[in-house]
C-alpha cells in the first residue's frame, strides 16, 4: 500500500464533489482552510452541505459564492471584524439556503458521537429554547430526513432511564463526508501536530469519512514520532495531505500568524451585498492562485501578522498599537 498521501491544492478541491457534506478545522476566525475554500470557489463547487461545530469567515466565503445549499451549525460571523454573517443573512432572507440550528455544545457533542461511532449523543443543554421547537426542523420541512446521512429526527427527548435525572435531549451523530483541516504540521504519513488550542479538530477528523490535511509544513514523519505524546491526530485517520504556507490567511494560526483583521473587516463591509461579494471575489479569488494571492498581499502585510515565536502571537506593542 502506498503511503504517499500528498496531493495538490487543486486536487484537494476536486476530491470535494458537488453535493458533498463538509466540515472544517479551526474556530471562527482561526485555522480555517482558506486556500482550499478559495479553490472550491474557483472550481464553482455547488450544493455543498456544511456541518460545522461553528462557522466563521470560511463559511461566509463559501455561502457568498453560492457553493452552499445547507448550513447546519450554530454561529457565523467574523468575531470583532464583522458582527454577523452578512452572506448567510442575505441567503436566508432570499430563501436560497437551508439553515439547521443547533446549539454550540450540541454540535460539538454530535461530532463527538460520530467520532466514537455512536449513533447519537445525550445532553441537557438548551432545554426550553426555540432550538428545540419542532416547527423549526428545517431539514425535516425540506423532506431531507432520509435516515441515511441525514438523521430521521432533529431531536428526540427522553427521561434519564438510569439515575432519574429528568429530561434529556438526544442529538444525532454528525455524519459528514469530508473534513478539511488546516494545521501547523503534518508528517508524510499523515500524523498531525496541532499547536495551541486544538478546538474540535480531533473529533472532526475522526468523524469524517475522508480527511484532507493542509499544513504550513510537511515534516518528516519520524520527527513527529519522536514525541508521539505531542501529536493530535493519528496517521491513519488522514487520507490526503498538502503543504500550503499561509493557507489559513486571512484567518490566524497559533504560533505562525495572527488573524488579518483589516482583511476580514473589508470583506465583511464589502460582502453585505451580493455585488460587493462578487467584486471582492473577482479581486482576491477568481483568476488567482495561492502564490499570486500571497504576492498580492505582499511581504510587509504578512510580516506584520507574523507571530513572535516565544509568545505564539504578534504582539500589538511592537506594531505601535492597532
Amino acid at each position: 500500500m502506498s503511503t504517499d498521501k500528498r496531493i495538490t491544492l487543486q486536487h484537494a478541491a476536486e476530491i470535494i464533489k458537488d453535493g458533498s457534506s463538509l466540515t472544517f478545522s479551526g474556530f471562527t476566525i482561526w485555522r480555517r482552510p482558506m486556500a482550499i475554500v478559495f479553490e472550491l470557489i474557483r472550481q464553482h463547487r455547488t450544493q455543498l452541505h456544511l456541518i460545522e461545530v461553528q462557522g466563521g469567515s470560511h463559511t461566509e466565503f463559501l455561502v457568498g459564492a453560492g457553493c452552499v445549499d445547507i448550513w447546519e451549525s450554530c454561529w457565523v460571523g467574523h468575531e470583532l471584524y464583522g458582527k454577523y454573517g452578512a452572506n448567510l443573512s442575505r441567503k436566508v432572507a432570499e430563501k436560497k439556503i437551508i439553515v439547521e440550528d443547533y446549539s454550540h455544545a450540541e454540535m460539538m457533542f454530535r461530532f463527538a458521537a460520530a467520532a466514537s461511532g455512536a449513533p447519537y449523543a445525550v445532553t441537557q443543554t438548551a432545554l426550553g429554547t426555540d432550538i428545540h421547537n419542532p416547527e423549526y426542523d428545517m431539514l425535516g420541512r425540506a423532506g431531507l430526513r432520509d435516515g441515511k446521512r441525514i438523521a430521521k429526527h432533529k431531536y428526540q427527548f427522553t427521561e434519564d432511564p438510569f439515575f432519574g435525572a429528568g429530561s434529556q435531549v438526544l442529538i444525532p451523530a454528525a455524519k459528514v463526508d469530508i473534513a478539511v483541516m488546516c494545521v501547523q504540521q503534518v508528517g508524510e504519513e499523515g500524523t498531525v501536530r496541532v499547536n495551541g488550542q486544538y478546538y474540535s479538530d480531533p473529533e472532526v477528523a475522526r468523524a469524517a469519512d475522508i480527511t484532507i490535511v493542509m499544513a504550513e509544513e510537511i515534516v518528516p514523519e519520524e520527527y513527529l514520532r519522536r514525541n508521539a505524546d505531542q501529536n493530535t491526530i493519528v496517521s491513519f485517520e488522514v487520507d490526503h495531505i498538502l503543504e500550503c504556507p499561509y493557507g489559513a490567511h486571512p484567518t490566524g494560526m497559533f504560533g505562525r500568524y495572527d488573524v488579518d483583521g483589516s482583511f476580514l473587516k473589508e470583506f465583511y463591509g464589502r460582502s453585505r451585498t451580493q455585488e460587493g461579494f462578487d467584486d471582492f471575489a473577482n479581486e482576491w479569488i477568481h483568476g488567482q492562485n495561492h502564490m499570486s494571492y500571497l504576492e498580492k498581499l505582499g511581504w510587509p502585510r504578512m510580516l506584520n501578522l507574523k507571530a513572535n515565536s516565544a509568545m505564539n502571537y504578534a504582539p500589538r506593542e511592537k506594531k505601535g498599537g492597532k
Partner: protein
Amino acid sequence: MSEHAQPEQYGLADLLCCAASREVGNNEIVFAGTGLPMVAILLAQNTHAPNLKLIFEAGTLDGRPPELPTSVGDARCEMGASRASGLYDAFCIAQRGYVDLGYLGGAEVDQYGNVNTTCIGDYLDPELRLTGSGGNPDINSFARRTVFIMVHEKRRFVENVSYITSPGWRVKKWPGGEFVHRRELYGAAFRGGPSAVISTAGVFRFDEVTGLMYLDTCHPGKTPAEIRDLCQFDLDISRVKGETVAPTLEELRIIHEVLDPDEIFIPKVKTA
C-alpha cells in the same frame, strides 16, 4: 478602595465593564465570551478576584492572558494557561457543573430573561438573520449564574423575544411550547439561571420564584420611570436599590492602561 470617578471621567462602556466585574466572586470558575465580558473578567482578576479561574469556550482552561485576546480562539488565550485543549473539554467541564458564572450578550431579552441572538422577526421568514446561538444557550444552561450585557433600547427589551436562543427563568416546554419554570424542565440538571442583565440603562435581576425581571440599580442620570419606559413589558421598579456604583479611578486605570490600552473593546473617554 480607590476613589470613585466623576461622571465626566468615564464612559458607559467603563460603567458596564465595572458593574459586570463586580458580579464575580474570588475562587469562582468563569466562562468568558469575546469582547467586553473578557475585559470585565480580567478586571476582576486584577482587583477583587485574583483567584478566579477563566475558561475560554475554544478550549483554554484556567487562562491568564497577558495581552487582551480579540476572540476566544485567539493565540493570546493560552499564555499562562493550565491547559490548552478544545471545545469538547470546555463543554464537558461546563456540563459536569464546574462553572459558576458565564457572561453573555444578546440582541433581545424578555421579562423572564430569555435571550435571542438568532433572528429578528419570524424564524421561518426573518427580517434579519443574526449570528445564531453560539455557546449562549449552553453556558446559560450549565452555569450557576449568567450575566447578560446588552444595549438598552425599547425594541430589545420585549414582552416575547422573536426566538428563544438562550433559556431564562420561564421557558418553553416542547412539543407544546407552553411556558414553565426552568426548574421544572431542567430537573436534576437545574443549577440556576440568569442572575443579572446589565444594560446601558441599569442593572436588572430576577425573582427566582416568579421568574420575572426587576430593576435593581439605575445608571447615574437615569430614573426608574425612564427605564420602565424603555421596556415593552411592565418592569417591576419597586425593588430599586439606588444608583449603579461608578467605576473607581483604579478600575479605570487597569482597564485603559493594563487591559485594553489599544481600545479594542472599551473606548477611552475624551476629556477636554
